[in-house]
């Protein structure tokens, strides 16, 4: 419902991508009391009834993940006829081309994995992304401030062309919008927000008056009813919550979540270099990782994780001081450059070096200097949140509504695109066998497919976050060992790359 939220969450994309961050934006406090209830009184309101329309699917939240679901439905033969309502108050959804090529890069970017790129190609949206600014990268260097270790990943280690592509969220959004507008999918965009949602239990069928009005269908649990803030109401067989980390659908449907806050903030902004950057850089500093991602032309995106106190300080210092701090943090700040000899790595880790990976000889490089700030600096708190269920009768959650992850590694929005792809495929399978698409037994297939994958990625990222947020001697050595392992052992490196690119479902060492 609130696209702003969706999008903003992604802001980070950075490598991260994710969501966790919420902008303080006009999220309007919905009265909790008003909402959950919806109920039967409303149900029978004859005045609204005349305007209410019935849809197969109502997608609440026209952000990247919600629109990707619509595009994916439009691209499958069995689902392209479905009647879809998209509910989002973002005015941009009403326009045809809401971005211009010459606009400065937006600091809200996403790191798209090769798996997501092929999903975009399948649904016909990648051609639109290619018309705008986007930056492939084929190298990634990760190191930490202790100077004990570094790892360099190269696409060719995994026999791939690229490791990923950094795209501004507004480019992704407008590409998906352009695609969905050109398809024949019957759709209608409601520029409003969700106020209430109600789904009644299946009635015992005994006293049915065999009329087929929407009210009757609703009363017997065959349709969900949505009421919007602008007074419109609509009915749908299936409601998809794609409304971000603070999902209203999740709240109204009563899904519980599990999660925690990291007591860390991320600062994001766009910066300019005097040369082009084609590598993704990430350095672990005492208070959190600093990532520098190429976003095309001479621009890069920065996602810098730190304590909330530091973040307010870094947000308010002058541009010059900020740039100096960034350059220092990417160079000699906090500790020396790593050199293999520091640990005597050839001895210490020689037992690990079964197969020397191809890029092991790539030596440590210093990232290009940052010369100018190209956007304002924004700060977001980090958290992790996971819905205990993704589906119930007539409701499914996708994207940040189902899981909000640490931005590390940029998996957030990629997990969301994976959800959209799987959900549309499950709906298609259901239609193939004549199922009611809101049946819980069907929707649970989607949940069974996505939850393990998402939980695994969240656990891996959370583990990384914890491993790197501690400055403690022995742990630093372990980290260094892990880096060396990742750097020198081909199969391991390959599996890390393919997991991070979204191509392997199972964890690293499978």
């Amino acid at each position, binding site marked *: 419902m609130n696209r702003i939220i969706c999008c903003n969450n992604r802001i980070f994309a950075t490598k991260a991508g994710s969501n966790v961050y919420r902008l303080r934006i006009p999220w309007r406090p919905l009265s909790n009391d008003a909402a959950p209830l919806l109920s039967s009184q409303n149900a029978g309101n004859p005045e609204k009834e005349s305007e209410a329309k019935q849809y197969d699917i109502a997608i609440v939240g026209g952000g990247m993940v919600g629109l990707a679901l619509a595009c994916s439905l439009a691209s499958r033969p069995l689902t392209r006829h479905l009647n879809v309502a998209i509910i989002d108050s973002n005015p941009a959804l009403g326009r045809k081309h809401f971005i211009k090529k010459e606009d400065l890069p937006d600091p809200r970017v996403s790191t798209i994995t090769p798996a997501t790129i092929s999903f975009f190609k399948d649904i016909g949206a990648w051609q639109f992304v290619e018309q705008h600014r986007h930056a492939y990268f084929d190298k990634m260097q990760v190191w930490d401030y202790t100077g004990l270790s570094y790892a360099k990943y190269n696409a060719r280690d995994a026999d791939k062309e690229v490791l990923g592509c950094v795209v501004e969220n507004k480019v992704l959004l407008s590409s998906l919008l352009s695609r969905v507008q050109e398809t024949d999918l019957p759709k209608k965009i409601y520029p409003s927000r969700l106020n209430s949602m109600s789904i009644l239990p299946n009635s015992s069928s005994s006293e049915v008056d065999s009329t*087929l009005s929407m009210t009757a269908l609703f009363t017997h649990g065959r349709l969900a009813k949505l009421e919007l803030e602008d007074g419109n109401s609509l009915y749908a067989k299936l409601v998809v919550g794609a409304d971000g980390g603070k999902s209203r659908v999740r709240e109204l449907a009563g899904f519980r979540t599990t999660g925690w806050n990291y007591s860390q903030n991320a600062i994001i902004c766009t910066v300019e270099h005097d040369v082009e950057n084609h590598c993704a850089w990430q350095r672990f500093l005492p208070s959190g990782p600093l990532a520098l991602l190429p976003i095309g032309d001479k621009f890069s995106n920065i996602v810098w994780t730190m304590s909330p106190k530091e973040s307010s300080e870094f947000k308010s210092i002058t541009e010059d001081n900020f740039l100096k701090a960034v350059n220092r943090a990417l160079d000699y700040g906090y500790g020396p450059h790593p050199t293999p000899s520091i640990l005597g790595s050839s001895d210490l880790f020689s037992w690990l070096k079964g197969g020397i990976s191809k890029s092991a000889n790539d030596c440590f490089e210093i990232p290009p200097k940052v010369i100018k700030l190209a956007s304002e600096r924004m700060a977001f708190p980090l958290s992790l949140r996971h819905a205990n269920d993704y589906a119930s009768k007539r409701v499914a959650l996708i994207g940040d509504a189902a899981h909000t992850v640490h931005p590390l590694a940029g998996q957030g929005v990629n997990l969301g695109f994976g959800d959209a792809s799987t959900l549309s495929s499950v709906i298609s399978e259901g239609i193939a*066998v004549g199922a009611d698409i809101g049946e819980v037994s069907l929707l649970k297939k989607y949940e069974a497919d996505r939850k393990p994958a998402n939980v695994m990625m969240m656990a891996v990222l959370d583990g990384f976050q914890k491993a790197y947020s501690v400055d403690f001697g022995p742990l630093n050595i372990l980290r260094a060992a892990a880096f060396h392992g990742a750097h020198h052992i081909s199969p391991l490196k390959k599996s890390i790359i393919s997991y991070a690119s979204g191509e392997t479902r199972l964890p690293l060492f499978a």
Partner: protein
Amino acid sequence: MASSMFLAQRRWFLSLPRNLSNARFFSALPSEHPVSVSGPQNNVGPESNKFEKASSAPSSLKEPELAKFSAIADTWWDSEGPFKPLHKMNPTRLAFLRSTLCRHFRKDPLSARPFEGLRFIDVGCGGGILSEPLARMGATVTGIDAIEKNIKIARLHANLDPTTSTIEYCCTTAEKLVEEQRKFDAVIALEVIEHVADAAEFCKSLSALTAHEGATVVSTINRSMRSYATAIVAAEYLLQWLPKGTHQWSSFLTPEELTMILKRAGVDVKEMAGFVYNPLTGRWSLSDDISVNFIAYGTKEK
């Protein structure tokens, strides 16, 4: 044909000979069963008691079967209730129907409603668990069941969705429709034949209902040692899911027997598949293992 489906899936879990010593494990055909086809009795007045009507109509049904299903009819649409295993199996049965019937009728498998314009009959429709998806796939569906209560429930449920409210539900039997000379493009009887008294007569009725160049689909449970063992251990002694005697293992048909009696009735079996249940995922899938549950698709010979 009664609420057949339900037994369907459960039958291999559940079915147990009421009395093991009497079970004729390898008896040939079910026609030896105590309840045999009753003679044609027409002219049952429309006002007469429905259940009465059903059971007195010409039929290959076993009366005690009707009473068993009548007792649990209310729970047809509770996907977590007694019919849960059936709900879980349903998509797999429908996947088989979709693929074989699209090929048979040369329909586009990528269409959301491939069966548009075709008349299907669901014999032993129960609460309509199979009829409704078939209607959503475009077919003009007639659902029949010998139990009036099932038909009532099926009709009420189907009326809640405009695409399924077109289903014609009738409390009648296949034999009766044969007398009325009704014909259908596809005749589908899933998990029914093991509940009828005379399987050979029943197959003749199915064949008679099938239009020229139409298709007949029958599914049931094999009479194998595996279906017997599973049923006893899991269903009767451990789980006690069903009242004892829900199924008569001895009246199950093997794939060879089914093929043979269909052949005698004029239906040529073209394809057969097995259903296997994975207890870990709780999902059914199609397989070539026909040792327990299986489904056969045939065409009417010229």
